[in-house]
């Protein structure tokens, strides 16, 4: 199963989301970045429900999908209260954190500005995720590292990846 996020404003419980979504595809049809994709056969009973793969395209939090959704599966939510997850940074891979150069792409691209991600004090270009992150995944899209040391995890897993790739593999399942 691919690593996926639900579009913004999605019901927290994924089973509830699947049962509320009728698979009309209208959320995808208004998404200006074409980030919303739909599960096909490989999605099992999630077939025709929307997902976002931030490694391909992150959400820009424009909110059109929430407005247009006829069901409760995507409910209109203010930008700051959206909870698609939280960005998590693997400090053993991120270029600035391992002193492999300067980057800061994730901080520059963040649509929420300083509320969601910033630089560690006095450690230039070492990104640190803050509580205001809503998990839109634009940092993941922009990250130049092929292994994507930044990705979106569920909120309770925190903003620092503790077990590196192993933790991520768990999230993938």
């Amino acid at each position, binding site marked *: 199963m691919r690593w996926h996020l639900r579009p913004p404003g999605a019901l927290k419980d994924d089973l509830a989301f699947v049962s509320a979504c*009728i698979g009309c595809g*209208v959320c995808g049809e*208004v998404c200006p970045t074409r980030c919303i*994709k739909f599960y*096909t056969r490989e999605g099992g009973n999630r*077939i025709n429900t929307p997902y976002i793969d931030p490694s391909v395209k992150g959400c820009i939090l424009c909110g059109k999908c929430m407005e247009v959704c006829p069901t409760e599966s995507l409910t209109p939510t203010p930008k700051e209260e959206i909870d698609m997850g939280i960005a998590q940074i693997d400090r053993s891979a991120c270029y600035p954190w391992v002193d492999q150069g300067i980057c800061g792409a994730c901080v520059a691209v963040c649509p929420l500005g300083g509320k969601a991600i910033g630089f560690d004090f006095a450690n230039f270009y070492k990104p640190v995720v803050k509580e205001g992150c809503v998990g839109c995944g634009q940092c993941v899209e922009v990250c130049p590292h092929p292994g994507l040391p930044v990705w979106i995890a569920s909120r309770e897993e925190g903003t620092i990846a503790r077990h590196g790739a192993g933790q991520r593999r768990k999230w993938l399942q």
Partner: protein
Amino acid sequence: MMTAKGNFFHIRHLNKLRWVVLSIVFLMLLLLPFIYLYQTYVAAHAYDLLPASEKQIYNVMEKLTSPFVSDPENQLDQIKGNTWSGTLFGLKLSDPLAVVSQAAASQKFYWPFILTGLIPLIFTLILGRFYCGWICPATFLYELNSNLAVLLNKMGIHSGNRRFDRRFKYLVLAVGVTLSAVAGAVLTAAIYPPAIVGREIYYGIAQGGYSHVVLGGFGAGAVFFFTTLLFDLFVSRRGFCRYLCPGGALYSLLGRYRVLRIQRVVEECNDCAKCNAVCEFGLDPLRDSFGQECNNCTACIAICPTDAFEFKFSVKDKVFQGPGHLGRSYRRGQEARLMSEPDE
């Protein structure tokens, strides 16, 4: 009603109007994904970076939409979606089957969504199964498929015309809704042709699967739909709609006491039975038997050589009125009656 002969608004032209409506709905389903692509190009402000093929889409769509909108990125959001669920100038409309299945799957009533099915519901209560004949994008393809069957027959390839029990589709509806409730997912969407057609056209044009390729190809639903086309062609004419479609079943149930229905004018009928031959749903207009299955498609009206059909406000079909008064059997009956009766 509109029955006067020689009138431009003759009732028999309704069938042409129906084809116009069906074509518009289908063409909109084809057009909307391209409009969506155009909107994304506009939103990205990156015309110069597009490959030539996408530039072409951009140019054509710009030409088509520029007379109507000044801000394509937002104004073109007015018409979105498909017949399964969509938004039309701010008004959200959903298929009643979507409402029923979603309520079953999520096991609660979410009123904003249920209300989106209200307008289609009211129309169905008045006009019966009209959706199946007038709007359904799958009907557009299924009726063309029926015409293909005629063509094949002329070429000597025999299409199937088996008949099954029409009530089977109510079983499909019941099982589909029950399974949706059990599985907690709207499963009827997977076997409901209009939903499949709308979705697959959108997937095929604008989704491109995972690879972000425009015109990326169709999914599993297209295979299913193609199978139903073959079923209709070689097993039973319009078989899916007649015997299997869960939406058709729901609409038939809702339209059982429809207010507006087609009725035969027995005085004008000559028993030619063309109406029975043309009826896509295999009904029996010649014997006044329309029933809840009739979708008011008006094909029988269009083909009737003596204009023996009319729309009437009534919640019931007429009981069989006997042979048509212009037909031979009625005339013989009259003669026999005259012979047997003593001189008057």
